[in-house]
């Protein structure tokens, strides 16, 4: 894959990958079916890609999709994220060349331990941005702009840490100078919502949409995992304002119950704090981390969920 981070990448559209025939018996008016398995999703990701990951910190992260990436031989990824354990796990697995982030936090634990280790060993490149700058970069990417101006970052060392950043002067009489936050354009975006239909209309039922709509628009392809795939007509069971993601930006829909675990996916479930502590404790040394990997990450998603259920009932990892 070409270097595309920072390179102002032309918008090439969100091509549909399915091209599937209409659902039999439902006529030509039915929406295209974009459902796929986590393995099918993972097979579309190539080394060197720029991957955006929705959610916020340790909240509503598409963890089942991240776990699927861990099982591939994909490497050299550039990850764009308001990061949490998504970034930590990918770093720990050696999948990451560069991380562009506003933060990498587990919320109740201030910093992801794998990310901390990767930073302190110098094993990943970074683009650390102010959170507001990061959002400006998402908006620019979604709008097919090369940059958006923002005050955030001015006079700070964000400009030192990102020597490629430029400022832009207002063409109007005020002549004000702003940071020109470049578009954070992505090859693919991964997001996780509570519900979606098979065509990729996504619905969040928790308190915060985070920036998942921007991710879906900022990427050439977007994969939406969800707790439950429902018939389109059931989407109106919740207020219309919960319909966050539009199918024209979605290329694949993957049903992954508990797919955000151990991050939160309110109201389906809160963050699994006990498991998150287990994750963070295991990250402290290589031996305990390889035991964690053995217990939770060697098998497929159903194996993971079974091991988590064991952990929940016994408070210890399975042998």
């Amino acid at each position, binding site marked *: 894959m070409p270097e595309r981070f920072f390179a102002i990448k032309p918008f090439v559209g969100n091509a549909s990958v399915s091209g599937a025939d209409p659902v039999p018996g439902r006529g030509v008016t039915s929406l295209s079916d974009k459902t796929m398995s986590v393995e099918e999703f993972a097979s579309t990701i190539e080394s060197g890609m720029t991957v955006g990951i929705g959610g916020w910190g340790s909240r509503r992260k598409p963890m089942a999709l991240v776990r699927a990436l861990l099982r591939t031989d994909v490497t050299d990824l550039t990850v764009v994220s308001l990061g949490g354990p998504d970034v930590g796990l990918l770093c720990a697995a050696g999948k990451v060349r560069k991380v562009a982030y506003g*933060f990498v936090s587990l919320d109740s634990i201030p910093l992801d331990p794998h990310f901390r280790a990767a930073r*302190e060993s110098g094993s990943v490149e970074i683009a*650390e941005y102010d959170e507001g700058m990061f959002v400006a970069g998402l908006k620019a990417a979604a709008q097919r702009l090369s940059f958006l101006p923002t005050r955030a970052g001015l006079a700070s060392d964000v400009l030192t840490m990102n020597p490629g950043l430029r400022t832009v002067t207002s063409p109007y009489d005020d002549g*004000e100078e*702003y940071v020109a936050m470049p578009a954070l354009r992505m090859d693919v975006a991964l997001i996780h919502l509570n519900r979606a239909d098979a065509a990729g209309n996504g619905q969040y039922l928790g308190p915060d949409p985070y920036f998942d709509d921007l991710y879906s628009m900022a990427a050439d392809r977007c994969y939406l995992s969800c707790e439950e795939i429902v018939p389109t007509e059931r989407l109106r069971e919740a207020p219309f304002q919960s319909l966050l993601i539009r199918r024209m930006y979605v290329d694949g829909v993957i049903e992954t119950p508990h797919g955000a675990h151990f991050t939160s996916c309110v109201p389906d479930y809160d963050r699994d704090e006990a498991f998150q502590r287990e994750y963070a404790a295991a990250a402290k040394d290589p031996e305990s981390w390889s035991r964690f990997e053995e217990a939770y990450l060697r098998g497929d998603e159903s194996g993971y969920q079974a091991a988590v259920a064991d952990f929940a009932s016994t408070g210890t990892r399975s042998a």
Partner: protein
Amino acid sequence: MEFTRAEVCVVAASDSWRNAGEVLAHAVGTVPALSARLARLTHSPDLVLSDGEAFFMSEPAPLGKTAADGGVVEAWAPFSSIFDILQSGRRRSMMGASQLDRYGNQNISCIGDWRQPKRQLIGVRGAPGNTVNHRTNYWVSRHSSRVFVEKVDVVSGVGNDRARANGGAALRFHDLGVVITDLAVLDYGPDGRLRIRSVHPGVTVEEVQRSTGFDLDGTDAVETRTPTSEELRLIREVIDPKSLRSREVPA
């Protein structure tokens, strides 16, 4: 009236919200979060408080509780709107600082060279944007020369010298107010440098200066005001009955 150092800190921090007007209080840390609640219940009824998630609450929520735990929601404010609000200026921050220099440059990003830090911290987070968009105050729970340093490793929150040198959009809304610590209240002189405004009861100017890694003018320092009985009642019975404050500032 008996009171603890933690309670002096909460009250001093509460005073930093005076005259903020009808703005969103952004408070990071136990003492800042308590102080915004105390301000809201005493001198600053217009202050807007969030539940730390996506909601503004019409009454101060118990520390660590969100709208999901109850209370009256007055507005919905997901993260996407927070960045709009902070750029509109209707917000005031009290953030922590891992390092702070004499001009109020703040570091929460990392210790050492950013390319391969000795210690990765939480990252710059919102500090660069906060400091160039609205009033920003700091809270330092352990006043020491490890925090108050000659030079910070990564300028996250922008200090007075850098804002002035940059001028323009970096300076237009730049507004550093006070630094509250477990020993003192610091503010900035006309030269943009930190100085001692007041020392907490039982603390000397010399002690504050000894605990600071650069010269700190204490000429005009007075004693920090003591909590009123009503403030103590609110802190102990209403805002912080579990005394989380004493974990951040031990007696």
